[in-house]
């Protein structure tokens, strides 16, 4: 748990002066930010801008989780990494970049794959979780772990010229499973490696995630509980969708949950927890 900060230092006041002026944030909101810890699952196209703007805004602690290493094909959208970081763990590369921007943020890199074995123990240490992952099994895993530990989940995704964002398990709203009780057939899932993605589209969606995390952490509250934001970059069109409420029959957050601990999500989804899409033959 983070040491509660009771006052801003002179350096804090200088650094955050432009946002301290905001009536919706102010000193109280800034102190709230400094007390909040956020776990970012995935340091790719979404996680990079998200980590960047949360660190810049003065979030207290940032967990940066990714099992992967930086490759040249990441750099068109994963803007925290540089050419010199190729081959390096993304979690470390992201943590170093974030520290250059704001050394007062506590940065914890996790160079590992989130799994049913480690997810609860990790997520319990954070106040807010951001899903910036790139595959279906991880999305169910993160959501179930957030329900079981009672954490709000700021989730975004992007593919080609499209993006989506929802805040799950927030103020009594639905979880990921409430919306998607059954996983999609693996052959219908298109990943960024197969379908491509315009780099600035996850850039925009990751910035939206940062905005919603900041609003939740500072006490303003998010606009996207039980709400889906759809972004179409080709027509520059936005759409806000009213979603179903928390489902009484949901397997994990419902009244008689059948999922009371984490399960095998690769088996559940029939696909591997990477974006190098292979179908699992079980």
């Amino acid at each position: 748990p983070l040491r509660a900060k009771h006052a801003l230092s002179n350096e804090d006041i200088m650094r955050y002066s432009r946002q301290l002026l905001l009536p919706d944030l102010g000193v109280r909101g800034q102190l709230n930010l400094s007390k909040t810890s956020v776990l970012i699952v995935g340091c790719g196209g979404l996680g990079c801008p998200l980590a960047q703007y949360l660190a810049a805004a003065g979030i207290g602690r940032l967990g940066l989780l990714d099992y992967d290493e930086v490759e040249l094909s990441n750099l068109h959208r994963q803007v925290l990494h540089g050419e010199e970081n190729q081959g390096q763990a993304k979690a470390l590369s992201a943590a170093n970049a974030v520290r250059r921007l704001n050394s007062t943020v506590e940065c914890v890199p996790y160079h590992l794959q989130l799994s049913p074995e480690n997810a609860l123990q990790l997520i319990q240490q954070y106040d807010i979780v951001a899903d910036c992952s790139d595959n279906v099994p991880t999305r169910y895993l993160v959501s179930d772990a957030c329900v079981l530990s009672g954490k709000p989940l700021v989730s975004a995704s992007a593919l080609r010229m499209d993006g989506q964002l929802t805040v799950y398990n927030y103020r009594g709203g639905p979880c990921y499973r409430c919306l998607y009780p059954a996983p999609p057939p693996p052959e219908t899932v298109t990943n960024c490696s197969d379908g491509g993605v315009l780099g600035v589209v996850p850039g925009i969606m990751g910035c939206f995630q940062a905005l919603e995390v900041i609003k939740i952490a500072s006490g303003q509250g998010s606009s996207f509980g039980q709400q889906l934001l759809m972004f179409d970059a080709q027509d520059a069109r936005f759409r806000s969708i009213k979603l179903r409420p928390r489902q009484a029959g949901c397997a994990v957050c419902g009244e008689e949950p059948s999922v009371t601990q984490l399960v095998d999500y690769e088996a559940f989804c029939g696909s591997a927890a990477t974006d190098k899409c292979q179908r699992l033959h079980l």
Partner: protein
Amino acid sequence: FLTTICLEVGGAELLFDGVKEHQVTLPGQSDPWDMKQLLVWIQRNLLKERPELFVQGESVRPGILVLINDADWELMGELDYQLQDQDCIVFISTLHGG
């Protein structure tokens, strides 16, 4: 009942030949159209190839979210919802990339 609706595809998957918006007039019938009948009609008339990317049993396949006039169809009665003239039905493919 003669019903004209708009059908839209949101998200990245190109179900209907890559066309995002369709204006569709459903054939006349004695009862109002419901969503269950609409899905059958779409499957027969718009999805000539690989219907399994769209339907499963008598509903849409997992991973597709259906909107009726910008609201989750779960709020509107799902398969039993009776279509009104000028309704806008959107099929969203959930995205998973990051």
